[in-house]
């Protein structure tokens, strides 16, 4: 470890970047494609090693390095940073762990893929950008990496680009998040013009000062308005990237990408970037009650809507995608209630069990790849007997997601409920109620998903002949299952997580509200039991279709339909309209000027008749006019 600690800090985010470049060379030249996963893994392990070597001990100064990149006029300097404080370290650990496991898993999952090297190049590029995002101590680097992880997501969702659905999904993901990013960019501009610096500390200082009544000179906005508008604009970025209502529509489509990618990017790391950003800048978001309310509200709506949709999905990855959206909503409820620790705690546990769930889904899809639609749960069933490891680990993941004690999801969900109860904000009560309802729904759909896939009899020929994947795929499952089992309890006991995040300062332990814990357990167990009883015996028709509201849920609350028909079609129509207008009127006006010149030339030409009498008449007339004009002006002068 000591040897790795001596490596320069910049290697931490850049080692995977170098690996990405090397893999890209392999991909373009088409040689030695088998080397790509090793290059990628070595780079990730180097990053992981450097991370481990810089564990922020309690009370120590965080490891930090700055590299000047550009100074723009006005003396604003842009420096890229590698800043490892407790919060960053926590996220680095998650990113490195999940990245490594997903890369190992991918060597098995993507083995037959011709574009093997390209896949690993994109994966490395993503790891690098994500590490850069986590290591930022300024808004500029945050924004840069924010966009870079977005483009990696685009490249990986569209990995199988010859499928139209995949290239559509990639495009949709990028454009929808771009809407949020515009808000984010504006937020950054506002913050920079208020603070005169990109540094988080300076920005937070400026906002705190403004909240304390110090007037700021910001264009367009009063100080009061600034405290509401600027954080909300930053939050727009989180809404896009973390797939919150109403911009959540891209994440389910993003399931077109390879499943390991879904586990890494669209469950554990990138989609959590929004949560990480809000947590990192939490003082900014807490400066105004309105902002807190909005965050809780967005989180609650998202959690509820996504959970109801997840109940009725038949595509195994779509269930998990909506579940991810819903759980991210959960984290935002915690952050809106002002509890950074609860939100991040859930981020960590969720990263473990959701990465696990996606990888088990990958195993299943890998086994089902001869089916017409390998993701469809109605063609599965009975896989538990064929794929014991996958089945067992998936059950652990599902129970953790359901919040069954003592698995990890229970502890973090409990922390969020506790935070919502403790918050003085009235809106937090809404969050609390929604969170309890969603807890029950979550337990229901996770058990439903497991039952449909693994229990009962095989419902298709392919499912009957399914078998377990190679050991490179099952080992990551086992490791993640261990984490999903134990990490919640481990981090919770003795307030380890909170103490670590607060730099060793031991906070007062949260008072345990027994009735709330009991209620949470009741919701979780009740939902799970309901799911179990409904899917215990095989039925011809999925019983979920008889649930009231099924039409609404199955049609995704008509949100996708709205975006598709109103926004996308409207934008295209606008484009065609403006293009037509440009040709017809603007260009038409230019042509008209040309024609007018031609026409007047033609008319003038006709005056050149060649008749001397005509010319003399014109000359005389002109002379007369000039004489008159001179007489009038000169006469007037006297």
């Amino acid at each position, binding site marked *: 470890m000591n040897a790795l600690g001596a490596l320069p800090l910049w290697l931490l985010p850049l080692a995977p970047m170098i690996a990405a470049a090397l893999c890209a060379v392999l991909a373009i030249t088409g040689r030695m494609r088998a080397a790509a996963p090793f290059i990628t893994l070595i780079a990730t392990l180097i990053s992981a090693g450097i991370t481990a070597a810089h564990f922020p001990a309690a009370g120590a100064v965080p490891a930090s390095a700055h590299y000047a990149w550009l100074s723009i006029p006005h003396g604003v300097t842009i420096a890229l940073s590698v800043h490892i404080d407790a919060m960053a370290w926590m996220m680095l650990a998650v990113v490195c762990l999940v990245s490594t496991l997903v890369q190992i898993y991918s060597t098995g999952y993507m083995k037959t893929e011709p574009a093997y090297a390209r896949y690993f190049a994109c994966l490395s590029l993503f790891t690098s950008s994500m590490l850069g995002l986590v290591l930022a101590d300024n808004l500029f680097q945050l924004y840069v990496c924010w966009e870079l992880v977005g*483009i990696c997501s685009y490249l990986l969702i569209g990995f199988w*680009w010859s499928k139209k659905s995949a290239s559509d999904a990639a495009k949709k993901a990028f*454009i929808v998040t771009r809407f949020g990013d*515009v808000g984010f960019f504006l937020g950054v501009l506002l913050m920079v013009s208020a603070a005169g610096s990109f540094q988080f500390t300076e920005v937070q200082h400026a906002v705190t000062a403004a909240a304390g009544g110090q007037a700021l000179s910001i264009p367009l906005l009063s100080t009061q308005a600034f405290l509401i508008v600027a954080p909300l604009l930053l939050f727009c970025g989180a809404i896009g990237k973390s797939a919150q209502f109403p911009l959540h529509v891209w994440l389910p489509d993003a399931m077109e990408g390879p499943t390991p990618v879904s586990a890494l990017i669209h469950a554990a790391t990138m989609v959590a970037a929004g949560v990480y950003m809000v947590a990192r800048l939490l003082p900014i978001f807490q400066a105004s009650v309105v902002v807190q309310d909005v965050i809780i509200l967005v989180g609650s709506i998202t959690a509820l809507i996504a959970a109801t949709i997840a109940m009725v999905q038949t595509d195994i990855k779509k269930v998990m995608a909506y579940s991810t959206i819903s759980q991210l909503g959960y984290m935002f409820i915690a952050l809106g209630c002002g509890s950074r620790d609860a939100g991040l705690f859930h981020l960590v546990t969720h990263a473990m069990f959701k990465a696990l769930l996606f990888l088990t889904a990958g195993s299943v899809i890998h086994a089902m790849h001869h089916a017409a639609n390998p993701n469809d749960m109605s063609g599965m069933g009975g896989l538990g007997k064929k794929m014991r490891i996958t089945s067992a680990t998936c059950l652990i993941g599902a129970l953790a997601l359901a919040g069954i004690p003592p698995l990890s999801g229970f502890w973090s969900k409990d922390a969020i409920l506790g935070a919502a109860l403790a918050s003085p904000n009235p809106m937090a009560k809404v969050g609390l109620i929604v969170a309890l309802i969603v807890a029950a729904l979550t337990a229901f759909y996770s058990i439903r998903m497991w039952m449909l896939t693994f229990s009962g009899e095989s419902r298709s020929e392919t499912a009957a002949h399914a078998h377990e994947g190679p050991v490179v795929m099952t080992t990551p499952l086992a490791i993640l299952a261990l984490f999903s089992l134990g990490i919640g309890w481990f981090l919770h006991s003795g307030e380890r997580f909170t103490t670590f995040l607060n730099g060793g300062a031991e906070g007062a332990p949260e008072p345990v509200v027994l009735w709330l814990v009991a209620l949470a357990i009741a919701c979780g167990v009740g939902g799970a039991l309901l799911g179990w009883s409904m899917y215990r015996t095989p039925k011809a028709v999925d019983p979920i279709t008889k649930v009231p509201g099924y039409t609404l849920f199955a049609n995704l609350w008509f949100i996708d339909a709205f975006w598709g028909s109103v926004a996308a079609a409207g934008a295209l129509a606008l*484009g065609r309209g*403006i293009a*037509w207008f*440009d040709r017809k009127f603007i260009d038409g006006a*230019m042509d008209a000027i040309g024609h007018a010149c031609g026409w007047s030339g033609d008319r003038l030409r006709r005056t050149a008749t060649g008749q001397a009498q005509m010319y003399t008449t014109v000359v005389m007339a002109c002379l007369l006019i000039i004489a008159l004009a001179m007489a009038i002006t000169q006469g007037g002068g006297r």
Partner: protein
Amino acid sequence: MNEWLLTITILAPMLAAVILLLIPEKQGLAIRLVALAGAAITLPPAILLCLNYDRAKGGYQFVQDFAWVPTLGIRYHVAADGISVVLILLTAVLITGGVFASWTRPDRTKEFLSLLLLLVGGVFGVFAARDLFFLFLFYEIAVLPMYLLIGVWGTSSQGRTKEYSAMKLTLMLMAGSAFILVAILGMYSYSTVHTFDMDALARTKFDAGFQHWAFFAVYVGFGILAGIFPLHTWSPDGHASAPTAVSMLHAGVLMKLGAYGVLRLGIQMLPQGAQDWSFVMACIATINVLYGAISAMGQTDLKYIIAYSSVSHMGMVMLGLASLNPVGINGAVMQMVSHGVMTGLFFACVGLIYERAHTRIVAKMGGFATKMPIVAVCMTVGGLASFGLPATSGFIAEFLCFYGMWLRYPALALIAILGIVVTAVYVLRMMQKIFFGQFNPEDYHELPDARTTERVAISVLACCLIGIGLYPKPFVDLIDIGWRTTQRPDVIEQARRQHVADATHPLAALLTPSVHAANSETNNDRNRGLTR
């Protein structure tokens, strides 16, 4: 040696253009090699100009100045500052790429390449000239060959013949030239010394009323070439009809001449006038950004998409210029470089695709990435730069333009920023339609990937985009020094007198940091004296 660098870059392509005419048409290889030599020979001086530019000294360097027609006050005076050297490097890169891209042109290659090189000599001249007479002369040399290049070698499309496009482009640009000529003659006769020398004119005091109208003439005249709304309509037709190398150079560097003219003749020589018109300029630029992008979204022809995207991106350049502050100006020149490379890359790729697929209608394409992976990768890089993705040159350029505009007219910056979403929409749609999806082998028998020469050209351009994006500091520094040290003496004097303390003030950064610090010090001293 240094003082000859500019003259060499201007004359080398022109000399090659003349030599080309002496080679018999049958010797195809010799023609191509001479053209390549004439283009590539400008690269070493262009790189040397960037390296040798003395950043500590600033101002105009590499001066060569002698009387041409003394009685009329015309001098052959060339010199370059940080902005010029960067743009000269861009031109040198693009013309080399352009010759590579026309390597396989079948018909009348000799005349084509000769005109192309002549044109580029003119472009170098404009970037280097410090005498208004020569500036205008070079400007016309750069613009006029376009008429033949499009009219003879172009392609007709969308019911518009190449002759029509060539005519429209030339007439509209000539109208612009008329405005420019008026402004130049105005300055000439207004100055008491009657000179075309820009250094002498920079020391002449123009009163506010004169500056107001002279700036207007400069803005409209050069603005037409920069594609300002609503005078941009020559650009889609012209770029769509022009052959590959011509589109590359025209969108890549010629449109930059327009923006450069507004910067050099307008903002720098007529600062008062620029202040008067800055809001109008900013509004028009905002319209350009959005209108161009939305129009691009509605196009079906690949070349029209790129052409409208140029209108949008040149709007970004004008947005940066209109901010009149150093951040925005830096951004504008960065965007000129970025867009120059990017659009050169785009048109090169589009030319390759058209040559092989024989269609430019995007709806008829699909899955081309399987057949031409190199083109797909390079064009994707161009696309990413086009919507300002970090780690490409487009990002830092657009960032600075928006930030500059934000400091001057925040509301307009807010509106213009929406352009980056629209750009992402049309770029990604275009990429998807051409390269992704199922390839249909029945429609296209053969779609070979780029040849070696073309591969070199497009991958070098793509690497430039990423290289500048990863480390833009050398370029931004050059531009910043150039802008800061080539102001009119009276502007600097004014900044000094006002003791501009507010860092966001447009004049503030004119004072080099040391001067600024010294001034605030004396200011503090005086304040202390007052309180005492």
